[in-house]
């Protein structure tokens, strides 16, 4: 289940008999390259590779494991630890879900994917359209949700997102209410202030940070800013149907302490999968 770039690397070890420090260093370099090309944070890559090197040199492989298997096991363990021991996502029976993230990350699309996910499982779901900045934001939500008969509460003429949230909560009585918000980044102070006010008014049970898997080294810093502002409880990684391997997710999890819950794998409303850590790690290792 390891991609070919790393399998080739590890073939070097299995052919070597004794553990050779120079060989381990060479293998570590290859692991670093694989992680960096997957957009894992540079400092995190250094931290991970240092740990793997220490363990590879001082640990004895478990009975029956060759050197190669041992290093793979260490690598998997270190990456799994980073993703956190998130127990499986259990379906809420009542929940207010807030969707936040950078511009263009896939919040609106994912909002409707999630709404469909819940309603297919018997949970009545509705959406509040609180993006008051993006032209035709309400139309986009409406067109995406309409085929599934999911109700959208929105006020396209109203520029006050807090009001929309307030009236939306009065109007909607479904088990799940998902709130879509405008894209924003950590340098846009006014927008971050708005997000805090929306959070206060909505009182969500779940706050999902929606991240584009194409993001590079900024993933950690941006996730940290969102977390410090409103507290993130879950991460959703989108556009994994492209070539991006999504290493930024490791930083997002590290900075928010929140698990990855879902991934987006396409533009259609069925293109949402529950997060699978093993498959994700294989993808990162390319």
């Amino acid at each position, binding site marked *: 289940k390891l991609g070919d770039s790393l399998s080739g690397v590890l073939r070097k070890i299995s052919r070597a008999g004794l553990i050779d420090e120079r060989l381990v260093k060479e293998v570590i370099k290859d692991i670093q390259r694989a992680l960096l090309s997957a*957009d894992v944070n540079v400092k995190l890559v250094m931290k991970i590779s240092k740990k793997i090197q220490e363990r590879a040199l001082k640990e004895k492989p478990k009975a029956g494991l060759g050197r190669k298997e041992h290093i793979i096991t260490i690598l998997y363990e270190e990456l799994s630890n980073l993703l956190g021991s998130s127990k499986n996502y259990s379906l809420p029976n009542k929940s207010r879900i807030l969707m936040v993230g950078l511009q263009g990350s896939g919040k609106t699309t994912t909002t409707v994917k999630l709404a469909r996910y819940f309603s297919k499982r018997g949970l009545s779901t509705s959406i509040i359209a609180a993006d008051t900045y993006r032209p035709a934001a309400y139309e986009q939500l409406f067109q995406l949700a309409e085929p599934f008969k999911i109700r959208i509460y929105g006020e396209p003429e109203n520029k006050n997102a807090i009001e929309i949230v307030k009236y939306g909560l009065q109007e909607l009585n479904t088990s799940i209410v998902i709130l879509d918000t405008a894209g924003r*980044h950590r340098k846009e102070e006014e927008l971050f202030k708005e997000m805090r006010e929306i959070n206060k008014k909505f009182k969500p049970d779940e706050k999902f940070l929606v991240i584009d898997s194409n993001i590079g080294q900024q993933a950690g810093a941006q996730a940290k800013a969102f977390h410090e502002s409103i507290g993130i409880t879950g991460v959703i990684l989108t556009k994994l149907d492209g070539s991006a391997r999504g290493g930024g997710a490791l930083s997002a999890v590290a900075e928010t302490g929140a698990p990855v819950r879902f991934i987006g794998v396409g533009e259609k409303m069925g293109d949402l999968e529950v997060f699978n850590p093993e498959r994700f790690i294989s993808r990162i290792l390319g």
Partner: protein
Amino acid sequence: VILDEKKLDEILDDFEISLLESDVAISVVDKIIGDIKSELYSKKIRKSELDSTIKNALRKSLQDVIKNPEKSFEEMMEEKTEKPFVIAFVGINGTGKTTTIAKIAKRLKDRGYSCVISASDTFRAGAVEQLETHSKKLGVKLIKHSKGADPAAVAFDAIKHARAKGIDTVLIDTAGRMETNTNLMDEMKKIIRVAKPDLILFVGDALTGNSALEQAEKFNSAVGIGGVILTKADADVKGGAALSIAEATGRQIFFLGTGQEYDDLEAFDAGKFIEEILG
């Protein structure tokens, strides 16, 4: 004084890390650092000048990749005598193509050029409505067909309209598409075959990491990129993706998107960019 190779490697390792942290793709970093190593390894350099020598070598190798475009936008338009000048905007999902078209339309209008926008994203929910809002605000004509229509047909229509009315430019908005989706890459090829644009601009997100390289390569081999616009440069990024894209395509960055308003479009300054990457 012969160069102390160990010291050189140490300093280059630091530069390597800073390039990676600036989102330059790893294979591009390898090439840059590799070129500098082979140039400097056998040189005579005074110990006190090691740092500045390496920095200058690094600056020079960056200058080989990233330059200001040979001609400005408007110069390219002036060179073509027959109207309209057709520009297509392509890229993966959510990078800011539609918003950038609105910014370009405003810029052209401010400089006395007339333009028509082609709503050739006939797929995404709310895409045409998003453009309609912009075109109304800017007082620019929008050519659109019904949802699900053939994107190439909309472009053809827009160009026909521009030709008939003597309009200077046609801006073609296309749907975002993943470089891995062959059907959508083929659809884009068809739009380009029909519209025969004078300029194809790749719109990339400045926050992109290593996948910028693969995206630029695939888009370039599919339709040939003429230039690049890098958006969301206001998000506190070093924007190393610019280097990856320039290296992959040999094309240059025309503009940076620096916000969500119509005026948030800056001409790219290669020198300034290089100094910021060099830190």
